[in-house]
């Protein structure tokens, strides 16, 4: 028993596995590109201007239908009728009639945008701040007939970023400011059929105890004409395809993982670090694969968004750690290996980066569980805090990349050195190194292809999404969906391949000249546990922990020792 599967696999079998994995990969792409619709869709909702002279926060103001509120169509009309600004309730019902929301939408985001025009006597002030009173309600009756139930009632302040591209003159009256859309809410669940937003822009801040006016609000917004909310959700079709893909991949990876671990257990030695890492990688990707989201069809689970983020983050972290450890364990001349401690710098920087993003995510999404209108980015301190997290994560990612590149460079340098020495080596030794080199190069190429593909697809889908395409609805290939399912499938295939190809092989090494198979296993074992050069014996193989920490003699000495033994 020696080496890993990939070294001992015949070209024919290897090709078989590669073709199989490639087929899975292509299937993932096609499912996304041809069956799934685009991952998300956005619907614009222009608010209806309801009138509420009583300024009561209890009532629900519905834009249309039998219970429609009394409304005005323009603010000119409102001014004519002596309607005051704080009587106005912007009412938005989601989705548009005659549709209803579906639980498969998974999440729902709202983006607020204001149409503000330039008026000479009502100009927008400097650094305008928007204060809004939002009430969010839901309804599950058919056609939203029944009573609206309150979900959230929230007072929020947002910064408004607007620009005016014309010369400010009487002629420019009526031209609009160019305002950035403002993130409004993020709901981690779409459990109800209809949602209603009632938004007010109050003009007074009233002290709740004394009922006295504390200060004026929304003073320098300028002449607001319209308010609209863009609602974004994941398409039901995409959710179904996505969850089906997850459900299909989950058992595949689990099976491969069990097979892999069985092989490890059958070995006479305890599992080495690399093998444990591969197992951990398989476990994290299985956790990601686990199609928990099916439950959202039955239960209201607003924390699913946070959970998905954590699962995905953990998977990234594990993948990055795996690369470091894999490369590190192939550093042929390094003395100390097979311990996580050796990689503390690399893994540490990566863990710190991931922790930053984790804390950020938990704060953001965590608070959103109770207040979906909350975002760290909304307040000055929050923005700074968020920036610190993101910058810190960026630095860690940079450090990690440097470490990884450095290590890969080290291994390649090592390989070329070993290459030169290969012809002079004893057959067993040569096979060992050739195996190592082959294994490493295969892995490097494979990883590189996956990473480059991910980057290419990502850039492509970004360009595709951000580009102006008129009549985009007409073509049938959904690139964004293909990107998501394809890349997701690719990393699953990656893990599958690692599990299958880097599992310990049952086969014996090709017969050596002296026919000594035990030496083959001996050499293989050396690779993974760094057996001391002076004692390349079977006893050391059975007791690796004792041998592992022995201070280093170089491979040349090991080689000499071997020659002497021979």
């Amino acid at each position: 028993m020696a080496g890993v599967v990939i070294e001992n696999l015949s070209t024919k079998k290897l090709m078989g596995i590669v073709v199989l994995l490639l087929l899975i990969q292509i299937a993932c792409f096609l499912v996304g590109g041809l069956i799934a619709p685009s991952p998300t869709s956005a619907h614009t909702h222009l608010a209806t201007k309801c009138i509420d002279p009583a300024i009561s926060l209890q009532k629900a103001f519905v834009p249309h239908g039998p219970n429609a509120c009394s409304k005005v169509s323009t603010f000119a009309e409102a001014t004519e009728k002596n309607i005051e600004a704080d009587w106005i309730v912007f009412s938005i019902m989601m989705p548009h009639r005659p549709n209803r929301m579906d639980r498969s939408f998974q999440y729902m985001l709202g983006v607020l945008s204001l149409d503000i025009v330039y008026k000479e006597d009502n100009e927008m002030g400097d650094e305008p701040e928007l204060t809004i009173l939002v009430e969010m309600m839901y309804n599950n009756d058919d056609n939203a007939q029944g009573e609206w139930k309150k979900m959230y009632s929230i007072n929020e302040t947002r910064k408004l970023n607007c620009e005016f591209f014309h010369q400010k003159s009487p002629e420019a009256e009526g031209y609009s400011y160019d305002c950035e859309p403002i993130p409004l809410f993020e709901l981690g669940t779409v459990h109800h059929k209809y949602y209603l937003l009632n938004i007010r822009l109050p003009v007074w801040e009233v002290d709740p105890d004394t009922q006295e006016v504390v200060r004026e609000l929304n003073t320098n917004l300028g002449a607001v004409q319209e308010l609209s909310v863009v609602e974004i959700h994941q398409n039901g079709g995409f959710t179904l395809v996505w969850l089906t893909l997850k459900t299909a991949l989950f058992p595949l990876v689990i099976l491969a993982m069990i097979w892999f671990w069985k092989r490890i257990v059958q070995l006479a030695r305890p599992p080495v670090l690399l093998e444990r890492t591969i197992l951990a990688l398989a476990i994290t990707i299985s956790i990601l694969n686990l199609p928990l989201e099916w439950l959202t069809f039955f239960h209201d689970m607003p924390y699913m968004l946070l959970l998905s983020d954590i699962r995905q983050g953990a998977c990234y972290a594990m993948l990055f750690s795996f690369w470091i450890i894999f490369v590190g364990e192939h550093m042929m001349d390094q003395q100390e290996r097979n311990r996580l401690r050796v990689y503390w710098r690399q893994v540490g920087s990566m863990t710190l980066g991931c922790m930053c993003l984790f804390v950020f995510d938990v704060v953001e999404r965590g608070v959103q569980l109770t207040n979906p209108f909350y975002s760290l980015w909304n307040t000055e301190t929050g923005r700074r805090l968020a920036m610190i997290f993101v910058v810190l994560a960026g630095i860690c990612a940079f450090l990690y990349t440097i470490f990884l590149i450095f290590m890969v460079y080290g291994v390649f340098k090592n390989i070329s050195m070993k290459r030169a020495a290969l012809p002079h080596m004893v057959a067993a030794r040569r096979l060992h190194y050739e195996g190592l080199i082959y294994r490493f190069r295969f892995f490097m190429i494979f990883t590189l292809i996956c990473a480059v593909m991910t980057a290419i697809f990502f850039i492509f889908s970004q360009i595709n999404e951000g580009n102006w395409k008129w009549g985009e609805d007409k073509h049938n290939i959904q690139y964004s969906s293909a990107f998501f399912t394809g890349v997701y499938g690719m990393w699953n295939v990656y893990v599958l391949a690692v599990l299958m190809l880097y599992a310990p092989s049952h086969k014996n090494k090709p017969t050596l000249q002296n026919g000594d198979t035990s030496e083959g296993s001996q050499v293989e074992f050396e690779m993974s546990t760094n057996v001391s050069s002076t004692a390349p014996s079977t006893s050391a193989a059975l007791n690796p922990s004792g041998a592992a920490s022995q201070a280093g003699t170089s491979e040349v000495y090991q080689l000499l020792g071997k020659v002497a033994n021979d």
Partner: protein
Amino acid sequence: MQTTLMHVILTSLFFLHTCVICGSASKWLAIFNMQALGISTIKSPDNCEELPGLVNKQIQICKRNLEVMDSVSLGANLAIMECQTQFQNRRWNCSTVDGSVFGQVLDNGTREAAFVNAISAAGVAHAVTRGCSSGELEKCGCDRTVGGNSADGFVWAGCSDNVAYGVQFSQTFVDAMERKTRATLERRLMNLHNNEAGRRTIEDNMRMECKCHGVSGSCEMKTCWKSMPTFGDIGQVLKEKFDGATEVQSLKIGSRQQLVPRNADFKPHTSSDLVYLVPSPDFCEEDLKGSLGTHGRRCNKTSKAIDGCELMCCGRGFNTHIEEVIERCSCKFHWCCYVKCRNCHRTVEVHTCK
């Protein structure tokens, strides 16, 4: 303005049946004022018959799309208002005159006719899109009969953009006029081109806005949508196109008649440029062709541009008188509406053309 509106009310009834045969393509714009005919909203197919200025085909479309017609009327209104805003300082100021809304000015294929066609087609597209976004209309982007990828329905794939529906409806409704008029083929081609140019202006000026919502708010997941500019912005762009419009003639190229620039040295127009067939009159004097003349129009004494008294009055000179105006001043605003204003008295010099 007030008197001309009254005029419309009186004469539109008269023109209801006769204007089907006349040349201008904007007769249907008369529905901007359907309230004046006692139709507040279009509820039943019978209302469609009562609407002024529609050709038979448009009445059929009206009957099939009752809920959209209020938006069409709103769009016509929007177009006329915007036209008047954009042209308030020019000799032809887009004033409405009779049942054909702008009078006979548009009977010839002038720049003005081109502009009116473009802005009215754009007005309908804009108003219908808005009607969709506000939830007032129920078909829109989710309607399977109008293009789009929504064949699988709202739950599976969401709806396609509302503006696609608005533009499509404008195309069906506004262009229906052209297929029924007795105008020359050349004129019909011009009208169709300008209608399309108006709608193109909306499409081309849609703003792309995006939101990132991936893991930890990263751009791994990004959703983009188009937001429609205000109609004032559309009007401004169309006014620029008016100034840069191309004079064309129709030539038979291959088996089809096509519009090509009259001056071969000019760059060929694109599908979003305005085209016209005959140069505009100077609009100085009232004439039978529909020009109202500039007698009595206000002008700006200091300006050297078209709103200046020199050009506006066509060299006839101007009268000056002092007027006292009362206007609102030092108003206090609460974002939408003013709370209180003072009334200010002001004396102004008013110049009017002789």
